[in-house]
């Protein structure tokens, strides 16, 4: 998820106060602060872009490290900033492996489409490994006060979180293929086409919840372990509401657009991108604020620490709307501005609560992790963060 979120693995944390009003006496709050400046980041961003293009992408790992160093380094808590230590060479190796794998996948699905589902199934055993390595790479390369974070998740745990994703390719193999000799069955066949995406939508909150819980429950700051008490049911509540909101928005915006197109075709078509941006911003604002609050507020760190997240769906949706318009209208040149103000908003709505001593954490043992997992995840668009 990069720029726009505080990487959650760098956040030592604890669940904030429960919603009930009978809260215990409030622990002192240490607010997060983001001190990056759009103008300053613009310089870094544009140089990254230039060097990446000139080197046909080979520079991109260095660009990524500079970007992450900037965002981590400008995130402050209790007088100290976070730091990112990823090694560009490790990231480059990971990216090259990912490019080869992705190229092979694209070719196979194009030239032997009937093996696409089989190939996905064949690659499935690698996915839990990918997830675990991604979390480990990010954690080990993040630090606060010269102590590294860590991640000790197991392959088996990740597999338990991810198995429902197999239903898609399995259904594609099991469901009957269309029968050209019986045209009457075709409508039913079309229905079958919708089964796999439908099942996937049903299991998505489960997978997301399990992956987030694995992430937080197996993360540590130094030797201090994190714990997350969020439940799968809470994720489902958010996504069911998001589903209702999705249907409602599609209906309202679709109706609006339909009327406009009927009245004046030109204006109607011109408005499609606008409506699309507002739609995306509203959906993202809702799900990200709700999931962010749920996960952060349920997270605790040994030593009596908790996180307190106060993201607002409406504020986040406004922020995303303005960002997207600014980016589109300036052909991308406002991306740094958008990234910085999003990071600032997210940091300002996160705080660490606890009466303990932030000086008391001890260093754990760290080991080097290859970056292949993370880079594969990015290439295949496995969006694992919040």
């Amino acid at each position: 998820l990069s720029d726009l979120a505080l990487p959650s693995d760098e956040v030592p944390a604890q669940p904030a106060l429960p919603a009930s009003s009978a809260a215990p006496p409030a622990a002192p709050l240490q607010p997060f602060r983001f001190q990056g400046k759009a103008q300053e980041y613009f310089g870094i961003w544009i140089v990254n872009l230039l060097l990446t293009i000139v080197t046909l992408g080979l520079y991109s790992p260095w660009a990524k490290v500079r970007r992450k160093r900037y965002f981590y380094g400008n995130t402050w808590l209790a007088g100290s900033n976070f730091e990112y230590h990823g090694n560009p060479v490790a990231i480059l190796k990971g990216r090259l492996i990912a490019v080869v794998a992705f190229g092979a996948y694209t070719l196979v699905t194009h030239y032997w489409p009937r093996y696409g589902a089989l190939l996905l199934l064949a690659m499935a055993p690698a996915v839990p490994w990918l997830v675990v390595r991604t979390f480990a790479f990010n954690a080990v390369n993040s630090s606060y006060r010269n102590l590294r974070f860590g991640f000790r998740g197991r392959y088996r745990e990740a597999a338990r979180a991810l198995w429902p994703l197999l239903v898609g390719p399995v259904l594609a193999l099991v469901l009957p293929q269309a029968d050209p000799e019986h045209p009457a069955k075709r409508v039913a066949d079309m229905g079958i086409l919708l089964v796999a995406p439908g099942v996937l939508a049903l299991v998505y909150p489960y997978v997301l919840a399990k992956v987030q819980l694995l992430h937080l429950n197996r993360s540590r700051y130094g030797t201090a372990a994190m714990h997350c008490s969020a439940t799968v049911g809470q994720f489902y509540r958010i996504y069911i509401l998001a589903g209702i909101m999705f249907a409602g928005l599609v209906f309202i915006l679709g109706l609006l657009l339909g009327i406009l197109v009927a009245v004046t075709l030109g204006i109607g078509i011109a408005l499609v991108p606008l409506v699309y941006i507002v739609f995306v911003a509203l959906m993202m604002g809702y799900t990200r604020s709700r999931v962010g609050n749920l996960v952060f507020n349920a997270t605790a760190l040994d030593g009596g620490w908790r996180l307190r997240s106060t993201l607002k769906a409406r504020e986040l949706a406004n922020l995303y709307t303005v960002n997207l318009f600014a980016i589109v209208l300036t052909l991308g040149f406002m991306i740094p501005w958008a990234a910085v103000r999003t990071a600032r908003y997210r940091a300002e709505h996160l705080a660490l609560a606890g009466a303990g001593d932030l000086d008391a954490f001890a260093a754990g043992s760290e080991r080097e992790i290859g970056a292949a997992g993370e880079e594969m995840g990015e290439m295949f668009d496995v969006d694992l963060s919040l």
Partner: protein
Amino acid sequence: VTTAGPIAADFFDGRSSARHLVQATREGNLLRIAGAAVALEVPVEHANVQPRIGRTPVRVLLPGNALLLAEATELERLLPIPRSRGLAHRLESHLGAVFASLAGVVAAAWLFVQFGVPWAAREIAQRIPPEMERDIATQSLNQLDGYVFSRSNLLPERQAKLRALFAELRGSARGAAANAQLEFRDGGLIGANAFALPGGTVVATDQLVVLLRDDERVAAVLAHELGHLEHRHGSRQILQSSIIGLLSAAIAGDASTLTTVVVGLPTMLIHSGYSRDFEREADRYAYGLLEATQRSPRLLGEALEQLENAHPARTSSCSPDDAPPQRKRHGPTAEDLGYLSTHPATPERIRDAEAAAR
């Protein structure tokens, strides 16, 4: 002995998260760090100053995993701060030069997209064995048969006549188009249309044959489809999309989820630009084939005009990746959508056919 400092800094021993407020001083070859619970001396060659980024505190790695953090403006009084990753940092302080070179790069990228990618795709496509493409064609046809097409209702005599015309055209063709097969199908939802499936199958729908009436015009459309086969447009299209996709992933990979939402648009524009080039290339091939068989290129223009009149929303002869044509008559025409269209505007193609006929 020269001394510098003291400066205020944060010290972390690497064993705990305790933050020690210290004073750092340089005395000759020694870095002296002193605070309430800290007192150490480090030879400056063991103080590893990390490149800075933005205005974040500069990190000085010390032996034993210890760390000293100080503001750059303070620290440079004691130790030289390396110019990070040399080039990147220097460029950041010359943004004018960055903009100039970026403009150059964008121009180069445009040339690359315009000429480099199509060239690479053409070279690779010519080396793809036809058997591999044939496999795709069989599967695409099976799928279309399953969901859209039905068996053709054209009379066997008409089919035979068209097959003879097709064989005549094919006789003048060389390369990939020389072994092409012709199939007839009831087009169902797709209506009047013709397809070139990579690997050497041309599909014409009953609706197309009925609409055009004149078999010579059907032949002109078939010649256009043979052009798609001859120039390996199917494979080139997928190769070009893959190359563009990988490149934009490499460049936008540094962007965020939010921006990937809007990154799709330029990719789509590039894609439809390539499709239009393919249609023009197939048109030109058709003119050549028509002339080689003593026909007028004008036939293709006439066929396109008939198709345009029948459903103005879309023009004829799609490659198999295209979506089914819109059926309503009041939809936006190809010209309204301009750059979003995958086909050149039909009037333009008709004019080209007229010009080729002269």
